[in-house]
């Protein structure tokens, strides 16, 4: 019995470790290829004959990577700040006030969250075109001033777990709604707010569809994902440079994650919701 259990233990751990290695494998191969010479990247030898650290500098020199990084950063930061300013009040209302239609409003949030962005793309594009804001990233940033369904949903899921007693007590003390939001709700909701902020930032950082639709042909306005998508075509035989660029786009995300791991995992589990 114990021996069988021991074998189970070994099998499970071996499987888990093997899977983990497979999972991390692609990242390792990206890294190795990023350091190869142009010629070697076209061969089937997997370990770099010589370590070509200059590839990273080469990527910066041969593309607008710096501009794209800056654009992506501006897009992601502004969108995230706007999202927080507009979504927190909505989530607050949906979680704290008892009113007719609160249920309907919540269902609208879910519907909006699940709406494929392409469904409403044509009319919205036409509006931005009339405002002469296409060929820029503003059509992706400005709407965040009007609440983001996913963030509202996630914040609301967290806020309803805060017991009513806390806010009721504050109400008895004569606190206004604004005061309650700032002194009671926000401090308690800090983990959830951190999670939606990170999700929003990463969503923008990774977004491809939005910039593809609005950024236009001028590379000056591109984001990292647009640049990376075209990188291979412009440097067609240079897989090493393409992988170096891939690594450069990925690295910031991984670094932020390693520092804010707990916020992420807690936030992700919040999206799982026991429906």
């Amino acid at each position, binding site marked *: 019995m114990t021996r069988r259990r021991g074998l189970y233990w070994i099998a499970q751990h071996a499987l888990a470790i093997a899977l983990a290695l497979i999972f991390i494998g692609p990242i390792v191969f990206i890294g190795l290829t990023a350091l190869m010479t142009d010629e070697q990247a076209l061969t089937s030898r997997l370990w770099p004959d010589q370590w070509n650290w200059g590839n990273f500098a080469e990527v910066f020199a041969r593309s607008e990577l710096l501009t794209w990084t800056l654009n992506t950063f501006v897009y992601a930061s502004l969108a995230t700040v706007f999202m927080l300013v507009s979504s927190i009040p*909505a989530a607050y209302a949906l979680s704290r006030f008892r009113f007719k239609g609160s249920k309907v409003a919540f269902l609208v949030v879910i519907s909006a969250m699940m709406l*494929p962005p392409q469904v409403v793309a044509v009319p*919205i594009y036409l509006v931005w075109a009339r405002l002469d804001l296409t060929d820029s990233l503003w059509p992706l940033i400005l709407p965040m001033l009007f609440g983001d369904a996913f963030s509202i949903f996630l914040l609301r899921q967290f806020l309803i777990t805060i017991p009513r007693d806390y806010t009721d007590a504050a109400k008895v003390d004569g606190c206004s709604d604004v005061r309650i939001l700032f002194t009671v709700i926000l401090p308690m909701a800090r983990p959830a707010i951190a999670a939606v902020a990170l999700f929003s930032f990463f969503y923008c*950082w990774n977004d491809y569809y939005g910039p593809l*639709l609005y950024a236009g042909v001028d590379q000056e306005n591109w984001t990292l994902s647009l640049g990376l998508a*075209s990188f291979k075509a412009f440097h067609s035989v240079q897989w090493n440079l393409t992988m170096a660029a891939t690594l450069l786009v990925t690295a910031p995300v991984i670094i932020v994650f390693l520092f804010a791991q707990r916020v992420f995992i807690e936030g992700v*589990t919040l999206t799982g919701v026991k429906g």
Partner: protein
Amino acid sequence: MAATRGEGVRALLWLSPWLVGVAVFFVYPLLSTVYFSFHRYDLFTLEFIGLDNWRYAFADSRVGQSALNTLWLVVFMVPAQVLFALGVAQLLTKMKSGAGILRTLFYLPSLVPMVAGTVAFVYLLNPATGPVNQALAWIGITGPDWFGSAAWAKPSLTLLALWGAGNAVMIFLAALLDVPKHLYEAAAIDGAGAWRQFRSITLPVISPVLMFSAVTGVIYAVQYFTQAMIASRVASGATDSAGTSFTPGYPDGALLTLPQHLFHTGFRDWSMGLACVHALMLFAVSMLFTLVLLRQFSRAEAAS
């Protein structure tokens, strides 16, 4: 009741920016899409053409092909992702030491930006020089052409989806750890084996979470865009600066999905009326599954 009405006004006030957003970015464009679907519009001239766009779209073989591709994703990719994530999560619950590290390793790939992950997979699965086919060659298997073959392109994307399943793994892991321990103990006393315990205790308890994940998975499959577009583009070597003629779907339309077809029709060919028909088709399908989700939430709200 008077108190409720007061709260209603205050709630309305707090919700007003979002309500404006719903009107401007949800309701208006949806109605407008219906309107444009009966018109020919190319940014310059607007002409009423009745049901012509609809007739054209329903006869368009690329729409049919997109629908079949999406059906494939729903039938194979979504279940594969859910089952795989559940398996990994279940495995992680058994880990005593090193669970934290393993969790990080499984979650990490899901953070890799979609474009970067897809570009990397096209390289890894490159039939001539990619490491995957080389590893297969060592054990005597001639690897397929992956993203270059119509038969293997969608399975390749499924591998990419499994690699990025870390989100679902975390959600399932949390759900599995939430299952009350005493249920297992009771079952063990009754002599239930591991599989029996999983079927009679674990599955029923976590089924709402699985259900939620499957339904959202389907909705995301319906709007599948970035990975397919990037895979086609990188594998075929095409750019998408306006003016070039990249048509999504390479190889042989195997990776074409309706959102891509819509994008190409509306924003590369500028047939915006026709694109609106595609949009409404997309809306109908995704709404069908959103309704399932809404029912689940209404029930959960009523229960709490």
